[in-house]
């Protein structure tokens, strides 16, 4: 019997061929000399080694980043040029805080499904080690007549000097992860969420330990081999594996750590995601193109959704709104989803969101649903660990999650997975992935 011919929509559907990421390492360690562009170069070149797409067929790069290099913020285009992918490989860079990586991937899927492109590499990278220290804008304004004018006179120099007082206004600002509108540091916001959702220290530490043990197991069993590449640093060191995962951690060890965001708080360095350097890239194609080039699709998007809440309220609760939205668009309920993968900014944040999803009251008041979205079985959640253990290079996390989940669906024979990411600005992101048959 002849196979049914795929429909036009099926042909255009964006499928995930695979993904590769750099090892994730602690900021100011191995990758200190590599900025977001260099980390992107590493991830994309490794991706193309594993999935050799003819360069002429590659249409574009879409990249996500949070700490963008000030002098070359279009990281995607820089990567394409660095790697000499061909001048025709166009590039754009997007930013949606910690959801930037997923944003890049869903932008690519949308572009392919709309027919703008057939093959796109999407991903993200961030280097906390290369956060730029910003000079106060007063410098810029004061120096403009000297920098941009014709021939400055001595009076101009004096004028500039007089504008540069008092000197305290001119000190560079220390970069920190704080909300622009509220000034609140993210850890403090997460600490508040822990208190307001009644998430205890022990619960958080237990979650963090599980994240470490699962990630360590994935590394030890070689589960990450196909998605993590070796990176050679400018100093010539070869970095083979993730640097932050602690196989030997335990709740006893974590219990000894002191709270970092509030005196009587519950968040510690052990149950929060650390500052991390790294990059991740995902290869997407239209289904027809994948068939033509002989690549096997691992997964595809069934839906995605983004959401916003007031950053002054519960800053990191976004996924509690976005995940139900993505489920509804996919026509699925939480109970039918085989895997759940959530970005772990803080153990407390994940546990708060799980509590919201499991609450009838939350569903009624905040989602307009009759009953709770559902209870997430820990056995289905973050099966290979998450950001608390692996680390969180802001722009890379979304692409890391898409890669790991697509591979998991492909290898395990499971059908569907739900992703959830919280992000600064009160944003939430979610997506439903499914296996492609």
């Amino acid at each position, binding site marked *: 019997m002849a196979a049914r011919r795929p429909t036009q929509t099926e042909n255009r559907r964006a499928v995930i061929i695979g993904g590769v990421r750099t090892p994730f390492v602690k900021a100011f360690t191995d990758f200190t000399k590599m900025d977001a562009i260099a980390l992107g170069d590493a991830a994309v070149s490794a991706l193309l080694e594993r999935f050799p797409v003819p360069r002429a067929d590659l249409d574009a790069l879409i990249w996500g980043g949070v700490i963008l290099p000030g002098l070359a913020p279009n990281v995607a285009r820089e990567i394409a040029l660095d790697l000499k992918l061909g001048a025709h490989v166009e590039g754009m860079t997007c930013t949606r805080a910690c959801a930037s990586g997923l944003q890049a991937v869903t932008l690519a899927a949308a572009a392919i499904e709309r027919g703008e492109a057939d093959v796109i590499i999407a991903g993200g990278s961030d280097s906390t080690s290369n956060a730029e220290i910003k000079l106060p804008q007063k410098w810029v304004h004061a120096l403009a007549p000297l920098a941009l004018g014709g021939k400055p006179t001595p009076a101009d120099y004096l004028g500039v000097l007089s504008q540069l007082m008092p000197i305290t206004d001119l000190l560079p600002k220390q970069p920190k992860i704080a909300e622009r509108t509220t000034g609140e540091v993210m850890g403090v916001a997460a600490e508040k969420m822990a208190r*307001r*959702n009644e998430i205890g220290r022990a619960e958080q530490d237990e979650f963090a330990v599980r994240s470490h043990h699962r990630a360590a197991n994935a590394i030890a069993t070689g589960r990450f081999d196909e998605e993590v590449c070796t990176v050679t640093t400018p100093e010539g060191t070869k970095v083979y594996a993730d640097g932050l995962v602690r196989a030997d951690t335990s709740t006893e060890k974590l219990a000894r750590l002191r709270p970092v965001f509030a005196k009587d708080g519950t968040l510690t360095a052990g149950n929060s995601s650390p500052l991390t350097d790294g990059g991740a890239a995902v290869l997407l194609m239209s289904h027809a193109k994948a068939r033509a080039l002989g690549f096997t699709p691992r997964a595809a998007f069934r839906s995605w959704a983004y959401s916003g809440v*007031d950053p*002054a*309220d519960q800053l990191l*609760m976004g996924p509690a709104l976005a995940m139900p939205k993505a489920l509804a668009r996919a026509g699925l309920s939480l109970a039918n989803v085989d895997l759940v993968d959530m970005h772990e900014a803080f153990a407390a944040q994940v546990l*708060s969101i799980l509590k919201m999803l499991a609450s009838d*009251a*939350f569903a009624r008041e*905040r989602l307009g649903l009759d009953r709770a979205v559902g209870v997430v079985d820990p056995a289905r959640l973050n099966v290979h660990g998450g950001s608390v253990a692996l680390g969180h290079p802001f722009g890379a996390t979304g692409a890391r999650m898409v890669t790991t989940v697509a591979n998991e669906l492909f290898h395990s024979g499971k059908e569907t997975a739900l992703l959830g990411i919280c992000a600064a600005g009160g944003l939430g992101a979610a997506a439903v992935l499914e296996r492609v048959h």
Partner: protein
Amino acid sequence: MSDLLVDLSQQPMFRQAVKQLGLPLPMPEKLRRPRGPWEERPLQDRNVVVFAGGALAEVFARTLAPAGATPHVVGEAVTAFVAPGEAWGRPPVAHAPGDTPPEGLRADALLFDATSLRSPADLRALYDAFHPWIGHLGRCGRVIVVGRPAQGFTNAAAAATAAALDGFVRSVAKEVGRKGATAHSVFVAEGAEARLPALLRFLLSDRSAFLTGQPWTLDARVTHDGKAPGVRPLEGQTALVTGAARGIGESIAHALAAEGARVVCLDRPGDEGPLAQVASAVKGLMLALDITDPDAPAALRAFVRDPANALGHLDVVVHNAGITRDKTLARMSPEYWDQAVAVNLTAVVDLTTALLEDALGPQARIVCLSSVSGLAGNVGQSNYSASKAGVVGYVRALAPAIAERGMTINAIAPGFIETRLTRAMPAMTREVARRLSALGQGGEPRDIAELVTFLASPGSAGLTGQSLRACGGMFIGA
């Protein structure tokens, strides 16, 4: 508008000095006022201590958590607060009755459900609840006692008990006023409970900063669809403000526009300059009209109905225009009498009558400006007080007639407000007027504008026919 004493009272050194020297100087607390339009969570991170022994625990719980407050529940009613606490991340903190409040806990509000009190002996519950907690009420805090209206009881003892709440609250208002804190009694008729959250949100918020010692009666007389938007309550609505060129009227125009209303700014011919400025600042329309002119009602109606103005109808009408023509009765000219009555009362009646024909929207809100002088009388203001008391009677009488159409009409009686008029008063008189109130200071035009905005909002459907003082708890007035 600067009040030197309020400013100085902010200085710890000044407070210390006054205290040490034993100076008989009042030190009024700077009132906490809102910035910007209505917010989703007006009670963000506020500690509200709830004594919920009656029927209202559920209503309180559904009001506080979404508004951002942390409920501290004294007694058994805590269970009602668990589900909303879970939905909004505001789990209740339980306190045992009779326990002393925890060290260091500052209460931003004390909220008491008195609906179950039926006999004078029951009133002891007020003492038992407030006695240990009142000292923990923070700066600019709120005390709110919610009961049933006395007139709803056939049993005289129950009616007396309900009426007692008013006296209790008025005294508490005077005791806590020096902290900038205020107190209110709310009387909710059976069946009007759903209209309580909007009022509580307003009273508990900074928007009620200058109101105190005020009884509020909520009933379900006015037809209402139950909608009470917490932000941008006037989106898509049209409003008329008379006397909008300056002072309180200007402030009202700004406040209504900030909540989304398209505002028609009306003032008398001759004031076109400032009127145009206000109308342009609020992106509204301008109408220069002498409201005492016999043709004014028809002209206003025509303006509203004129398709060129794209108004269709008015959803909010604020009769703010008013004049004083002060003289003791023996020296008063007939012109003085006529002018005051024509602007302050006749125009209100005639314009409203004309608009009611076909120029008001369903669920329209009418707000009239009265005055504490109208309630208490004042030397040299027989004309003014007559007109302003007339307004009180007008809203009371008109309210039932328009209730079925979903419309409300209420009056606001401002006390001492810092405006161009009061700045012209002799310094000593002004100083006395400011200090002779529970809060020890004058109000600002925006305090009136905040109350007008609340009364203009869809959620104020429970209030009609009432005259509400905005006077900081003046010693005179009803």
